[in-house]
């Protein structure tokens, strides 16, 4: 993994009150690559993901220590502007969560709150561009004024991806983005993720081993809050170093 590193995590710990949810995690996440996170339920994957863009700040008693750096900037530095951090680090969730607005306004939202356009022409242009990037444009270009809820689940998820892309983040975090989708929508999203890595650094949580094997360049395996193994995906899925990793990914676990 001799790539440019976008995210550096050193001796990182996270706590929900007494609960020690991430234990001394050290990990380098390369730029323009896809990193998959796998591990049993409750091992801390979502906690890790949400620690990258400080989505956990609102949770009472949530504390972290150690280092979480994006491009050399400490995410938990007191002087950092959390809104601009979230602009640089977008997120897509397990269930598509469009706003109760039109398709157009869903994508426009991030541009409006961040004032990222000069005039209507630029706004329209950016919206179209990100819908194209998300692979949704052809399906919705004549229905931009329809409610986002009229889209199918897979389309809604791609809309949420377009919404994340439109503000041009550097990093995209995805927490089980295809968990509620059918195989065709899943395949579309997987294809999309692989196209997107050209311009973005992607961290994806998945419970589907084959999905991690298909799309990720690197894969990390977490258990009980600890990073157990981290390697290029092809090695993780042909010959992992640790027995426990092999037992988990082959379903011999527990």
């Amino acid at each position, binding site marked *: 993994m001799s790539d440019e590193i976008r995210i550096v995590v050193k001796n990182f710990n996270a706590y929900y009150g007494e609960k020690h949810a991430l234990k001394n995690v050290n990990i380098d996440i390369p730029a323009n690559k896809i990193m998959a996170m796998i591990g049993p339920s409750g091992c801390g994957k979502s906690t890790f993901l949400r620690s990258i863009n400080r989505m956990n700040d609102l949770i009472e008693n949530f504390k972290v220590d150690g280092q979480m750096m994006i491009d050399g900037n400490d995410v938990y530095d007191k002087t950092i502007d959390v809104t601009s951090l979230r602009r640089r680090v977008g997120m897509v969730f397990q269930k598509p969560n469009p706003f109760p607005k039109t398709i157009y306004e869903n994508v426009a939202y991030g541009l409006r709150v961040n004032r990222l356009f000069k005039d209507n022409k630029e706004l329209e242009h950016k919206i179209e561009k990100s819908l194209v990037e998300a692979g949704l444009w052809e399906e919705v270009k004549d229905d931009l004024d329809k409610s986002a809820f009229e889209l199918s689940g897979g389309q809604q998820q791609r809309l949420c991806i377009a919404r994340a892309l439109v503000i041009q983040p550097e990093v995209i975090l995805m927490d089980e983005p295809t968990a509620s989708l059918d195989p065709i929508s899943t395949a579309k999203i997987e294809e999309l993720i692989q196209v997107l890595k050209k311009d973005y650094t992607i961290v994806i949580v998945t419970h589907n081993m084959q999905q991690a*094997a298909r799309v990720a360049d690197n894969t990390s395996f977490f258990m009980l809050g600890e990073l157990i193994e981290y390697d290029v995906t092809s090695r993780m*899925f*042909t*010959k*992992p170093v640790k027995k426990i990793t092999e037992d988990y*990914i*082959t*379903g011999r676990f527990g």
Partner: protein
Amino acid sequence: MERHFDEELNNLKKNILKMASLVDESIAKAIKSLLERKEDLAIEVENEDNAIDMVEIEVDMLCLDLLARRQPIAIDLRFITSVMKINSDLERIGDLAANIGHKVQILLKYPQLKPLIDIPRMAELVRAMLKDSITALVDKNTELARNITARDHEVDELYVQVFREVLTHMMDDNENIKNGIELILIAKHLERMADHVTNIAEDIVYMVEGKTIKHQFEP
């Protein structure tokens, strides 16, 4: 945790073991037909190759089915892909045994050239290597597997010895050339069998350790 998949893998293992034991029987029969000059046995070996080919196809289908349905990874993936390779090496060994059966039928038309000592020794060595490779597969014993690759040289040396000796007979008397060549080819077949068993042993090391030791590539 016991998986349903494990039952299917066990079934695959059973089939590859069956394949190995059929092949082993073929070698034994082929050499017996040569030593005891039994034409009916030689014909039998040649015909029985069909049965081995059928099992080969069966094992292949099982592997493809598991790859498609289970999308195996890690040790499961290494096991299935190794079985596919071992299967094809076993099939080749079966072909060679059948071919020996064919050559024995030709040889029996001539008087015996010389007492056979090294050829049965080669066959014994090949069969012992084959037996150990199957044990290594079942027990995931890489020490045993590595030991097999070392024994390949013994078979090579015996082949060279047979070649020299038969050549001398052929030079002594032109009449010995036709059956001499068949004998050399039989020895060559046994030597090739040992190469295939060596491949099998290397696949087992890869399967267990994820390391390639083929082509003297031991990192």
